[in-house]
């Protein structure tokens, strides 16, 4: 049984903050099929299209029939824990300072035998539920958990290395003026965040939900205009060392593409808010977050971006907006790489049109801001890297994978 984590005490200022280290990172190219699975929280294995055999580790040919048609497909995640061991003195710095570390060998019901990290409640000889997780080096690893729920399951020491549970952590939601920011803040608070700092740009402007946020225990409104260099730096100077999770809820949606807009002033606003805002936030909060990646129970763990799914494929009706989102998506990959030495997860939450005024004329289905807030929490708890919230986002993802050209043509409606 797992002991529940305790609310962290105040740091001892006489002790050096433990610096983050990374577990071994090298992987074969083919093995990144698992990285993709882990990013989306899926359990996928290679299966031979010739003979149907599941195989693991990643291979270039089927060990049963030598076919090279090994596709990564969703696989049944159940297995049996054959044997376990606890490494007490690993040769690697990351594991050595986290030892003892428990691993095991799991015989999957679908065939392969898998070396996996073990949840503390896994019992030798008992069934386990396998998943791919992203470890602190950002690479996919297998993780075996007991089949059912156990008390304080999410508090397992090894599981917490793979996840970014908001519990006891301090979160900055960068834009509380939007419904998404508001719902994210509320959901994170419900999920046990110690403090949710909510950034408010232009505090002299009233906004919907202001009263609601002001009335919440543990929610603290702070002045933050992400598009403004000084405002972002000033806030980071105040609370940068206390931001364990940053949720970038910058939202600047304006309809229109190129030809039906005159000039660049709206585009400039889009770039200002979304792109430069991202850069300001990254430069102000990224370095300290990266430094605090191993700073105890409330170490900094994750950066979340709420992005339009049209970052992946341009929707001409909101064409310039789509482009600003694509730019942010690209930045997120850059930031992911730069935060990686700190073990900070970079999660992108892709949404379709949200049920807000800017998508008023767009037919349903639309995503409720509350659903996005809840997705942020569940993604953090599961340690995901990519989430698709709502039917539109999921459909765009699938259509893009199926045929990008068909998607491009069909988005031109």
């Amino acid at each position: 049984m797992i002991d529940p984590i305790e609310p962290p005490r105040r740091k001892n200022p006489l002790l050096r903050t433990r610096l983050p280290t990374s577990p071994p990172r090298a992987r074969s190219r083919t093995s990144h099929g698992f990285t993709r699975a882990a990013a989306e929280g899926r359990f996928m294995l290679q299966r031979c299209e010739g003979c149907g055999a599941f195989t693991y580790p990643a291979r270039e040919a089927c060990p049963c029939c030598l076919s090279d048609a090994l596709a990564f497909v969703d696989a049944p995640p159940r297995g049996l824990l054959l044997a376990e061991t606890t490494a007490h003195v690993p040769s690697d710095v990351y594991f050595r300072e986290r030892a003892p570390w428990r691993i095991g060998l799991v015989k999957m019901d679908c065939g392969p035998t898998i070396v996996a990290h073990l949840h503390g409640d896994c019992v030798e000889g008992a069934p386990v539920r396998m998943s791919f997780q992203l470890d602190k080096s950002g690479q996919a690893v297998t993780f075996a958990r007991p089949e059912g729920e156990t008390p304080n399951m999410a508090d397992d020491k090894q599981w917490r290395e793979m996840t970014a549970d908001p519990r006891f952590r301090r979160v900055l939601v960068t834009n509380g003026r939007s419904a998404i920011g508001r719902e994210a803040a509320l959901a994170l608070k419900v999920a046990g965040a110690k403090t949710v700092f909510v950034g408010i740009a232009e505090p002299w402007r009233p906004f919907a939900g202001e009263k609601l946020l002001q009335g919440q225990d543990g929610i603290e409104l702070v002045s933050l205009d992400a598009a403004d260099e000084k405002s972002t730096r000033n806030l980071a100077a105040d609370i940068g060392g206390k931001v364990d999770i940053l949720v970038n809820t910058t939202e600047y949606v304006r309809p229109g593409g190129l030809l039906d807009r005159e000039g660049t002033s709206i585009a400039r606003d889009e770039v200002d808010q979304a792109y430069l805002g991202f850069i300001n936030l990254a430069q102000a909060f990224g370095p300290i977050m990266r430094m605090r990646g191993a700073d105890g129970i409330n170490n900094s763990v994750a950066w979340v971006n709420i992005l339009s799914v049209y970052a992946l494929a341009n929707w001409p009706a909101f064409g310039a907006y789509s482009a600003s989102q694509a730019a942010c998506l690209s930045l997120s990959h850059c930031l992911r790489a730069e935060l990686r030495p700190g073990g900070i997860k970079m999660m992108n939450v892709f949404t379709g049109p949200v049920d807000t005024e800017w998508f008023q004329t767009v037919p349903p289905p639309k995503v409720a801001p509350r659903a996005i807030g809840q997705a942020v929490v569940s993604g953090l708890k599961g340690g995901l890297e990519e989430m698709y919230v709502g039917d539109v986002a999921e459909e765009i993802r699938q259509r893009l994978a199926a045929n990008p050209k068909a998607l491009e043509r069909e988005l031109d409606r």
Partner: protein
Amino acid sequence: MTTSLRTPYDGIVMAAPVTIPYVRYSIDSAQWWIGRALSALVAQAGIKVSDIDGLCVSSFTLGPDSGIGLTQHFGLCVRWLDTIPLGGASAIAALRKAARAVQARDADIVACVAGDTNHVDSFRLTLENFSRFNQDAVYPYGAGGANSSFALIARNYMRAFGVTRADVGRIAVAQRANALRNPHALMKTPLSIEQYLAARPISDPIHLFDCVMPCAGAEAFLVMRDETAASLGLPAARLLSTIERHNAFADDPMQVRGGWAMDIGELYAMAGVKPDDLDIVQTYDDYPVITMMQFEDLGFCGKGEGAEFVRQHDLTIDGDFPHNTSGGQLSVGQAGAAGAYLGLVEGLRQVLGTAGPTQVRDADLCLASGFGMINYDRGLASGAAIFAGTSR
């Protein structure tokens, strides 16, 4: 498909067992250690470097070098060359290949050599870059290296067959006793079963004295035809039989037996001997539990009887089952790929009567085995050889 009858190793001999004494850490390169071994081979055999016309090399720490680079490095002009990256099975594999090369007269004198250096960081780097499956699917899991992988195998084996740590410990304790007679062994203090049991855990159930100590060193021997040895006036041991097997029993969910079990009948039949006939046994002892497994798989007892076997026998030099007489890797040290050679070279000295302080009286018939390459969840490579001294 039936396996065709193999050609006997008639007239194939091994000579000039060479050990370059090990050190825990070395600032020299693997090339230096291999160079020392080649130099010792030449000196011991009384031949010129140019007499060596075949070379077989194993090492983990040569960097970008393989056998070909070493020919120029050491001024060798050979007509047969091999590099064998089979870890603990490298010595048996090298012997097999060299034997066939000299038998077919592709070469006359093959130098088989293995050596590794051990810088402060080289063991970790070897672990990190061991194999693709290891890199993808083992090392990122606690980075326990072979300790954790064998811990899983050991735990399963011990549970399946009711083996206790005290049973396994007998092997380590006996080898330490042997090592105390070997001036080159890195372990120089006695080890009691109590100390063995009380050792700190490394990766349960593997504890400190289940583990080998990585070190630097080199081992070598020559393979030739008996008429070559005779013309050089070299004492030589006759090769009677060998086996080699890779990725055996792939369907076993966990490893409880090695590839020897597939080929053991052939090993003894080709040699024309029974397990009982052997005077000494040199197993591959990266972990004592693997040695116990070999006692079973090499036919000294049945599967699951390894614990009882070690309880019933004295494994020391003067015992009824002299085993790993140098002290084995557990007590001498594991000099990388040279660890594969350790038992074979010691066995060779034993049957040639040149083992000195570790000499077993009247040792003439020896079995040496190899085991290696825990590529993913199990050791993949296994091999064994039986050879006899001059008196037989």
